[in-house]
């Protein structure tokens, strides 16, 4: 039946209309995929198995990570508690505490402990140099990719000026968005010398089921001290930190759904117009022996072809945006990278195909049921 040829030729015949529909559909799919990629990134951030074994200790009643100042020696006392496997003091330096699309997060840690506790792997650079040089830094590959940072260059923000000596990948997606430095370097680098204080402790527990009990024990230990603590499982901390983000995302998903509806309306308009102006042509097809289902197939086929092309273009745009747009959403030092997974590509394509199917179903049914005689009389 030469469906492929007829479908291609008809889309090409009305090339401006086809291009406009394809462009609109591509934009809708790109927006849908971008919103969903943030959702997937958030799921990934909250789904790391290391996060279930880790507690985060902050200063009680802190407003923002940078307002948390805990004595560094707390690490020794925490490590003595039953059930604690290791303690990592962390000094944080952020460019922005609120929700931001371009967050810069420095984490200063004792190098040896950090390498033991965090599951990072160098993809390029020199680890020995990082251990040796006090102003050296390792950059997470997500952040490096967004900022175009390579090994050997200097990265400067405010008073912090580090030499990038390595790029790393990490088991936890949020850690691929940070810059790791020496603890002492970062303590001294800020506007105020904070030597001897840290922002938080990352506490690794032996048994994830006992994480709650260990958290209570830590807070009780420092309840009467000058700097009381607030200890929560890292998952709970991430969930709390990203609460606003999830609210925004909820709105974003409504926006994504609206995109699907716009795509549906756009596709519907194109298909209906196409069928109306081809009434006589369908009559000619029926006359020469095309059956009703063949006519329906032509209408549906064109809609699906447009959907596939639109989805491919939209997903390509989303990939370019995520890969080269240099965006990640950060809040309170936690950065969530946009994550385009094969599943998301499938969802984008499915959305476009569903829109095409819904938009073309009624016009296809009507085209299949045309009165041949009336159709041939149409001018």
């Amino acid at each position, binding site marked *: *039946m*030469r469906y492929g*040829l*007829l479908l291609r*030729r*008809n889309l090409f*015949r009305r090339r401006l209309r086809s291009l406009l529909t394809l462009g609109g559909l591509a934009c809708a799919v790109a927006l849908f995929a971008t919103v969903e990629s943030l959702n997937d990134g958030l799921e990934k951030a909250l789904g790391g198995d290391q996060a279930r074994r880790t507690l985060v200790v902050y200063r009680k009643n802190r407003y923002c990570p940078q307002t948390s100042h805990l004595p560094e020696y707390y690490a020794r006392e925490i490590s003595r508690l039953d059930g604690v496997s290791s303690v990592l003091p962390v000094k944080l330096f952020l460019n922005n505490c609120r929700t931001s699309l371009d967050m810069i997060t420095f984490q200063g840690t004792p190098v040896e402990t950090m390498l033991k506790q965090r599951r990072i792997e160098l993809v390029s650079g020199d680890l020995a140099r990082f251990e040796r040089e006090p102003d050296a830094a390792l950059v997470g590959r997500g952040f490096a990719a967004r900022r175009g940072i390579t090994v050997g260059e200097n990265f400067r923000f405010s008073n912090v000026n580090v030499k990038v000596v390595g790029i790393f990948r990490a088991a936890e997606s949020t850690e691929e968005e940070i810059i790791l430095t020496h603890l002492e370097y970062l303590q001294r680098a800020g506007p105020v010398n904070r030597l001897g204080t840290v922002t938080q402790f990352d506490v690794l527990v032996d048994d994830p089921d006992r994480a709650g009990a260990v958290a209570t024990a830590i807070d009780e230990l420092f309840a009467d001290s000058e700097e009381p603590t607030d200890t929560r499982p890292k998952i709970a901390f991430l969930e709390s930190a990203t609460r606003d983000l999830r609210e925004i995302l909820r709105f974003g998903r409504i926006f994504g759904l609206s995109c699907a509806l716009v795509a549906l309306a756009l596709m519907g308009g194109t298909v209906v117009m196409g069928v109306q102006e081809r009434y*006589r*042509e369908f*009559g*000619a*097809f*029926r*006359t*020469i*022996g*095309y*059956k*009703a289902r063949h006519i329906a197939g032509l209408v549906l086929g064109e809609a699906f072809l447009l959907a596939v092309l639109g989805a491919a273009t939209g997903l390509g745009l989303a990939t370019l945006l995520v890969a080269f747009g240099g965006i990640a959403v950060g809040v309170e030092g936690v950065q969530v990278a946009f994550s385009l997974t094969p599943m998301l590509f499938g969802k984008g394509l499915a959305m476009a195909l569903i829109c095409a199917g819904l938009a073309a179903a009624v016009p296809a049914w009507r085209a299949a049921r045309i009165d*041949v*005689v009336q159709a*041939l009389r149409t001018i």
Partner: protein
Amino acid sequence: MTAGDEAAAVISLRGLCKSYEEGGRRRTILEEVDLDVAPGELVALLGRSGSGKSTLLNLVGGMDRPDRGSIVAAGRDLVRLDEAALATYRRERVGFVFQFFNLIPTLTVLENVRLKAELVGLPVAEQNERARALLAEVGLEDREGAWPDRLSGGEQQRVAIAAALVHDPEIVLADEPTGNLDLDTGRRVMELLDRLCRARGKCLLLATHSAEVMGVADRVLGIEHGRLVPREAEP
């Protein structure tokens, strides 16, 4: 026609009636029409616009259904066929030539001619061979790659004639084939249609309101008040 001729007829209509609802009233178009058309015969239907010529052709072409009566064409009782079977009948047994050509605008001249050969499942080489031979016969062998909208009316109608014959149908139905052409072009198209159908022994049922093209017909029938009336063909 004798009883034997009737049995051999490619088209046989008996007691055919057709009416339409129009402004809340029933308008009778065809009433008790009987007709037999033999293989290779060219029958012209003459009548004013709205007299029922096209309706008769649509019924024989399986595009419309009668209120009453029987239509046996190419050995098929069309009244008993369902929509899918009628589509197969149109595809395999009938060639159509229309006033407005009805070529597929997204297919080239060659593809338009080849389409029916393809639909009936001929091998690709044979499709091309037949289509090119017919295009040569209608004098358009050098236009096979052209789009229909780049052709003149006469050329489009010649393409439509080639397309109607490519799958070797038993019946050719031509509804006002010269109605959209100037007199001279119309006459040449009519001669071409007549020559090609006769050369292949096709039964041609032609509807026209123009007496100018009647000279080629074996039999001329008028439609008056829904009934077929014999008319004299021009010498």
